[in-house]
């Protein structure tokens, strides 16, 4: 596909199509192409074969699966995850590295997916909130901690907090409350109180230690 072509991803659906259905349709289409309502044509300079030139069609490892996807040069990982791979558990709050709602793990390390190019994470292991529960549907111990403690209110910030916590616990599985607070200080919440969130995350850490012992 040439850079300037915008493919209509869904052609045989009725005109009125909900955003969710559209996204599902796009996902079903396999190697995913640009959704025209979001992505403008991007014919910059023609492809060159200089060392380091990038291809648009890439394979990403997301939640243990290989996903083929058509990625623009300037596309952020959050955009790819949400609007091309349908993984809408990752939220976009600020799109400016200022809130943490978009936090995902890249090779086990928490990153703001709104602030990294998808092309930069080719070959890396990406884990989103959708990838935490086990195949049989059993929640991750930190997710369970959220339920145990009723940790969130609207929960828009929740997946970011959980991913930041899961990442932090890999470096320090038995943190004090103050250490965990510092470790997940790159995440904001606008409506719950941080004390309750910390209760949930501390409970999650405890759940995780217990799960790892057995």
């Amino acid at each position, binding site marked *: 596909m040439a850079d300037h072509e915008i493919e209509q991803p869904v052609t045989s659906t009725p005109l009125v199509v909900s955003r969710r259905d559209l996204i599902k349709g796009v996902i079903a289409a396999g190697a995913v192409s640009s959704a025209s309502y*979001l*992505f*403008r044509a*991007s*014919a*910059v*300079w023609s492809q060159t074969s*200089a*060392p*380091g*030139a*990038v291809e648009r069609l890439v394979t990403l490892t997301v939640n243990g699966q290989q996903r083929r996807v058509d990625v*623009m*040069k*300037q*596309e*952020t990982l959050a*955009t790819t995850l949400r609007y091309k791979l349908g993984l809408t558990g990752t939220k*976009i709050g*600020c*799109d*400016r*590295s*200022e809130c*943490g709602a978009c*936090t995902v793990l890249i090779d086990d*390390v*928490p*990153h*703001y997916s709104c*602030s*990294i*190019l998808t*092309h*930069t994470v080719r070959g890396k292991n990406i884990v989103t909130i959708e990838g935490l529960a086990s195949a049989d549907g059993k929640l991750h111990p930190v997710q369970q901690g959220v339920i145990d403690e009723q940790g969130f209110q609207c929960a828009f910030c929740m997946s970011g907090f959980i991913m*930041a916590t899961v990442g*932090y616990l890999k470096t320090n599985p038995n943190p004090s409350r103050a250490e965990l607070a*510092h*470790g*997940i*200080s*790159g995440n904001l919440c606008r409506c719950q109180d941080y004390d309750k969130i910390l209760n949930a995350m501390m409970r999650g850490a405890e759940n995780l230690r217990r799960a790892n012992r057995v």
Partner: protein
Amino acid sequence: MAVIHDVMPAFELFQPPTVDDAVRLLGQYREDAWVMAGGLDTFDWLKDRIKRPKVVVDLSQVRELSGIREANGGLEIGATTTLTEVVRHPVIRGKYGILSTGAEAAASPQIRNQGTIGGNVSQDTRCWYYRAGWPCYRAGGNTCFADTPTAINREHAILGADRCVAVNPSDSAPALIALDAKFVIRTPKGERVVDAEDYFIGPGTDITRMNILRPGDLLTAIRLPADWAGAKFYFEKVRDRNVWDFPLMNVASAMVITGGKIERIRLAVNAAAARPLRLAAVEDAVRGKEPNAATGEIAGRLAVQGARPLRFNAYKIPLMRNLVKRAIGGVEQAAWA
């Protein structure tokens, strides 16, 4: 503040595998190219459409630029080493503690996991007029919006202003100056090594740049010499919020004390001027004296000589005076402690 647009405007992206390839690309595209390391300063500019490079050269795949190794009794830190790696490195923690503390004071955990030391020292100013795209001096225009009677300039400069009153916001820079770090630069003509304090420039030298890099140049490494390993260190950052917040001011000092007297000292502050300031006159004044509150008092007074406040940042003068005082005399214990 930030307005969320759909996606960034298009650019051509290169991810060169080696420094040589990166330098070749930068040489080829010159003014059209933007160097990107972690991208955490970069993306704001691109998303807000304030800077519109045609080509982005992403350094993330250049292995040789990342990592920390021992060299000549000191350390060499690759330019794309993340701040988190700098914070956690055992030798940096053990022998060059102010760098670890300074790097950890920056931004948020996720930003430190991705932001690089090279990007941290090369980041642009946070002046919001400039970052919002106002056509000021620094942007190539002929006025400063931060230095008018109604301007909001609480975070701006008290020293070294020349038309532009912006400050350098890096938290690692003053620590690197105190440690007498050397910056290694690849230019189209070859390699160049400069002292940390000479990497940064003020508006009097070039109002559109924060450092000496020219199009085509690459910062490849930062070297920490053995001279200051294990010295007596002080780092402090003052900010409004404990996370995500740029310094209102920070200070870093390294001292070697012999027989109760300051034998050698290096001292720097940032967010006071458009470049991190090494306070050489203060160093000269306190050498040979005891590192106590009285010496700190002298140092603090000397440090702020010539400071000129703007409408909302006069507090920075006593702030700087006190930070310098603490950096030399230490923090006095409260009477009841």
